[in-house]
């Protein structure tokens, strides 16, 4: 009995210790730095406690970054889920099993691309003079220039479209596979119950898939938080601050513009707290 009970401990303790060190040390260090006034240009520092946080709430660029982050989160998550469900259901209804496999293969390719590659591909595609994505506009308007990445009103959506292109198509494959796992009888019963095609999905199949779809949404929400590389390559937060999310702003405050690492750390800590609270709240809501 003793040997049996000590085995899990033997395996768990070292791994958990490593994990704890790897995750907690940087986190705690970030919190410590956020309470100081370190800058990259000078080695000296002093403790300023919460003045970095106080400054943040007076910083209009920070408040803009919060708003952009929220917009980014909502736009990418909603669009991804909409594309995933729409395309998944469409494939389920229209495509033959053979064709479905072909589509699935095609739809997985974008998400396999490294983010930076995807970002460059689309940056070229959105090029106002040569881009394939802007070509239809030039064709219709007889050569007018449209540069979605350098207009404040469209830049965020243009970048978000790349995110949705990668994840929405991938999730469509998952939604299709989920639909295929459903037992066929409730769908047949719904057909006998006078339900139209779209009603079958709205009232029967998608509600039956509620739990996995919510899990998918959570995955996408977490994934959307990590969009730094995509935005960095495509717009660097521009034009102006139109696509400057919190992580972009923290990065530029910490390393590019002023080297204020303490100020940047304060942002990171705030982001962490906000994320933990939001996700805990949402998770509880969903479980209930």
């Amino acid at each position, binding site marked *: 009995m003793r040997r049996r009970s000590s085995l899990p401990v033997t395996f768990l303790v070292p791994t958990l210790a490593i994990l704890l060190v790897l995750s907690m040390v940087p986190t705690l260090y970030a919190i410590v730095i956020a309470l100081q006034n370190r800058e990259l240009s000078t080695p000296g520092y002093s403790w300023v406690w919460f003045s970095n946080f106080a400054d943040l709430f007076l910083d209009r660029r920070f408040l803009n970054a919060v708003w952009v982050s929220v917009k980014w989160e909502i736009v990418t998550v909603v669009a991804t889920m909409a594309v995933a469900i729409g395309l998944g259901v469409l494939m389920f209804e229209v495509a033959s099993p053979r064709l479905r496999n072909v589509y699935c293969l095609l739809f997985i390719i974008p998400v396999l691309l490294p983010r930076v590659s995807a970002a460059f591909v689309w940056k070229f595609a959105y090029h106002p003079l040569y881009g394939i994505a802007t070509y239809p506009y030039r064709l219709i308007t007889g050569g007018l220039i449209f540069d979605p990445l350098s207009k404040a009103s469209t830049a965020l959506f243009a970048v978000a479209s790349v995110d949705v292109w990668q994840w929405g198509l991938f999730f469509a494959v998952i939604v299709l596979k989920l639909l295929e796992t459903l*037992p066929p*009888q*409730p769908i*047949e*019963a*719904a*057909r*006998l*119950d*006078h*339900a*139209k095609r779209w*009603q079958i999905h709205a*009232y*029967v199949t998608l*509600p*039956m898939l*509620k739990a996995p779809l919510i899990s998918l949404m959570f995955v996408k929400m977490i994934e959307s938080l990590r969009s730094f590389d995509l935005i960095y390559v495509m717009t660097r937060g521009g034009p102006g601050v139109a696509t400057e999310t919190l992580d972009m702003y923290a990065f530029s405050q910490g390393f590019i513009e002023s080297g204020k690492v303490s100020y940047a750390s304060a942002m990171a800590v705030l982001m962490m707290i906000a994320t933990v609270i939001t996700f805990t709240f949402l998770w509880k809501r969903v479980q209930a």
Partner: protein
Amino acid sequence: MSAITCSHVDKAYGATTVIRDLNLAIEEHEFVVFLGPSGCGKSTLLRMLAGLEDISGGEMSIGGKVVNDLDPGDRGIAMVFQNYALYPHMTIFDNIAFGLRRQKVPAPEIKKRVEAVARTLGLEPYLGRKPTELSGGQQQRVAIARAMIKTPKVFLFDEPLSNLDAKLRNHMRVEIARLHQSLKTTTVYVTHDQLEAMTLADRIVLLKDGVIEQIGSPAEIYRRPGNMFVAGFIGTPNMNFVEVTVGRSGNGWTLTGAGTVLSITGQGYHMQHGDRAVLGIRPPDLKTAGADRGCNLLQGTADLIEFHGNDALVTFGSGGKEVSALVPARECPDLCAPVRYTFDEESIHLFDAATGLSLRKQ
């Protein structure tokens, strides 16, 4: 006018034909059971009626209207599935009301009708629950309620009792029979269980490999099976088959086989001297022969005895052929004891050895 007509109906999946040139007419208010071994096409046929499977050839009509190309919802049918097929995320009330809501029936009327149906089936206490919180029998009752509420022209049941345990199955079978007595809705019921078929059906349609073997009332099918397949499929314990050679003797006929010679008058059968035939006799029709009985005997040594309660099934070898007799338990012989059984001529069946068809004159 018949409620359902199938004329020259075919069903093929690619090169495989599942149902071949099937013709069938089902009368209004009739309870018809499709019976057959698994893979005989009975469920496919039902699903074609429901509109869940395409019809490859021929014509199907329900209530005088050709339904080949109609959507399942527009055929005036309601179906009960083997695994209930309830909507798992909806309450029982919503499950029953789903069809009415899709037809845009006003909410107060839906409430009234759902409550009325729930009352009939004893589901009132469960209306607020989810399907998973109900037992198998209750779930099946919900499925029946969901079918009933549409007041269909035809009820379709696809092996509705197969997922229930034996006791509940008997109970639900009685409920379905009562329901049909009170509603009188034309019903097509698919099963592989001959007891269900015999007890519920007005008429049984016995299918094998997508072809109708025989149509008739349970009594007809039991008493006058049209061929060896029907004879062997219907009736438990299974009918004994003994290969015999037909011979003419005086005014009657002799059947030689299984180490014995049987003489019968042969009235009512088509026979010729020298024919190869198969004698069919049900185990309950074999009777213990008295010591003075000298002819029409099947005898051997009892090598297996299965006790059934009131009766016992005695299996013995007769001329190298295994034969079973169902005898009252008190007449049950000891194992390995010699047994002698006889029969009345009215209870035998004769089939052509080559075609398997009954030799009985129509």
